[in-house]
């Protein structure tokens, strides 16, 4: 039981970070970022290259992951999303663009980093063992703590800084924000970069535990979509709740249902569909957000 809770907390904190980035981009631009999983994979590979191959300190690698992804996100927003949103008759066209970017990033990852599964040496050794009821490697605890720390600092950023206030205004009402003197184009770019940065950060953190490979992008995106749906699209607290709930469901499912084979996800999906049929806007979302 303790083990399941610990696993749930660990998974949930990771997932919450992935979902945060996705929901931020969605709230600001109304874009469903299909490439989110690929951004996460790139973050993992950057950390792998710098920490695993060049042997620089882990924290440097993590910072580099964030910077790389933030730049990438800003460029993608500036060069691709912004002009397409302006020029297209229907908003949904951005989904094609997002999928195209997902393909492109996949191709780039394949060419630059190859298709092999990559891992890095552990950041800290040893296993926390409480009476054989709760077993948790120290590096997982560290990663979990870092994830919680980042989520907290992200919320602080959104709540207490000028940038955060501008972003929240943008998410609420684009036109009104513009009328109040918010530089909409600039903050859209910052928001997109921030979302991409979060994806890169999670990628960098998780590469120390699960490693990273090319195929992780798509499934990660789907999971992130699910979390966002559970919590309600475009709502930050919702994304965190969605991440934690999915993390716990996965931890419980893997522990309880493992003898029935791989039906955990089937059950999660089905219950999600039932949940959404009853409450279409998710836990905290605005109706028809």
């Amino acid at each position, binding site marked *: 039981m303790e083990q399941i809770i610990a696993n749930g907390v660990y998974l949930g904190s990771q997932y919450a970070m992935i979902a945060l980035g996705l929901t931020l981009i969605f709230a600001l631009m109304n874009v469903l970022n299909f490439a989110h999983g690929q951004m996460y994979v790139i973050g993992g590979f950057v950390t792998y290259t710098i920490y695993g191959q060049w042997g620089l300190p882990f924290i440097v690698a993590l910072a580099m992951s964030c910077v790389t992804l933030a730049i990438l996100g800003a460029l993608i927003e500036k060069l691709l999303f912004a002009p397409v949103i302006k020029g297209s008759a229907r908003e949904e066209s951005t989904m094609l663009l997002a999928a195209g970017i997902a393909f492109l990033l996949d191709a780039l990852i*394949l060419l630059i980093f190859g298709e092999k599964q990559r891992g890095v040496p552990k950041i800290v050794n040893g296993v926390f063992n409480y009476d054989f009821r709760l077993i948790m490697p120290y590096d997982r605890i560290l990663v979990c703590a870092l994830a919680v720390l980042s989520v907290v600092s992200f919320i602080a950023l959104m709540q207490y800084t000028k940038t955060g206030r501008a972003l929240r205004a943008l998410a609420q009402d684009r036109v009104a924000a513009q009328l109040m003197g918010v530089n909409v184009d600039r903050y859209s770019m910052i928001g997109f970069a921030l979302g991409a940065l979060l994806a890169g950060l999670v990628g960098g953190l998780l590469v120390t535990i699960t490693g990273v490979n090319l195929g992780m992008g*798509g499934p990660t995106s789907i999971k992130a979509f699910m979390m966002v749906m559970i919590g309600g699209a475009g709502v930050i607290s919702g994304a965190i709740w969605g991440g934690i709930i999915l993390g716990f469901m996965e931890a419980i499912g893997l522990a309880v249902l493992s003898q029935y084979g791989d039906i955990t996800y089937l059950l999660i999906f089905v219950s999600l569909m039932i949940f*959404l049929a009853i409450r*279409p806007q998710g836990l905290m979302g605005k109706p028809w957000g």
Partner: protein
Amino acid sequence: MVFLFVVFVGVPILINITGRWDFYFTLTSVALLAIASAGVWLTFYIGRINIGQGAFALIGAYVSAILVVKAGWSFWVSLPLAGLFAAVVAVVIGLPILRLRGVYFAMITLVLTQVVTLTALALPITNGAKGISSIPLPSGVSLYGLQIIPDFGTMESTKLAFYYTACILMILTYAALYRLVNSRLGHLCRSMQQNEELASSIGVNISYIRILVFAISSFFGGIGGAMFGSISQSVYPSSFQVADSVNFMLNCFLGGLGYVFGPMLGTLVLYFGWDVLFELGKYQMLVYSLILIAVIRFLPNGLLSLRLRKGAEK
């Protein structure tokens, strides 16, 4: 008319000249995927983003495969049944989820694809991950001694036969779609695409229409999937996955959402383009995605919007 001529006469001659027999398979796939994409387009027409067509294609493929292999039915009977079954599933699932809108609907249909894939893995009748393989080729049909459809198994060139079948199905689908869009139902759909509340307040029964449209859309998906299973003579849970669902949607976007024949062109360009770029080896994906991004960057309303700008009709 020109189009029909090209499809039925021009393409076979061209393939005969160039000797690229593999193009038959490619073009057959294009025709079938275009059928499924037509369904997706129809759901776009009522203002819903559908990323779940892979689910219905998979359902159709399995229904047809099970009927042919386990029950020993003729493929030609199982084909409409596959479509109908997909439509029934769509009605059952659509009742709750069609209340969702925008991204919520898009994401739940995406999840639906996963659900169907995982269900196919878990159920005994679908044989799990092994799938159903060695499905017999479609048999002949004769009515009052008159051979209507020849037996595919005895033909020398099954590829050509499948090509024609797929093309006929595709043309029927698009004819039906064109008819639908230009009918009273089509007008109602357009009104829903613009504003559902308004449509409903004028007296349009929106919940009935959206379920009807979703069922028709899934019917197309089921037909396309069943035919696909019959051509490849096998069905696996991975035959249609999330990536396929996303591709169906991309076909519609690429061709242009405002045009009935948009998904057909989109499928042709996407699938054929992918095949042609195969020569590039490991840069295939890179070039493909760059072209895709360039198209959407400079033609955000789809390929067919080029024609519109020149001032051509429709």
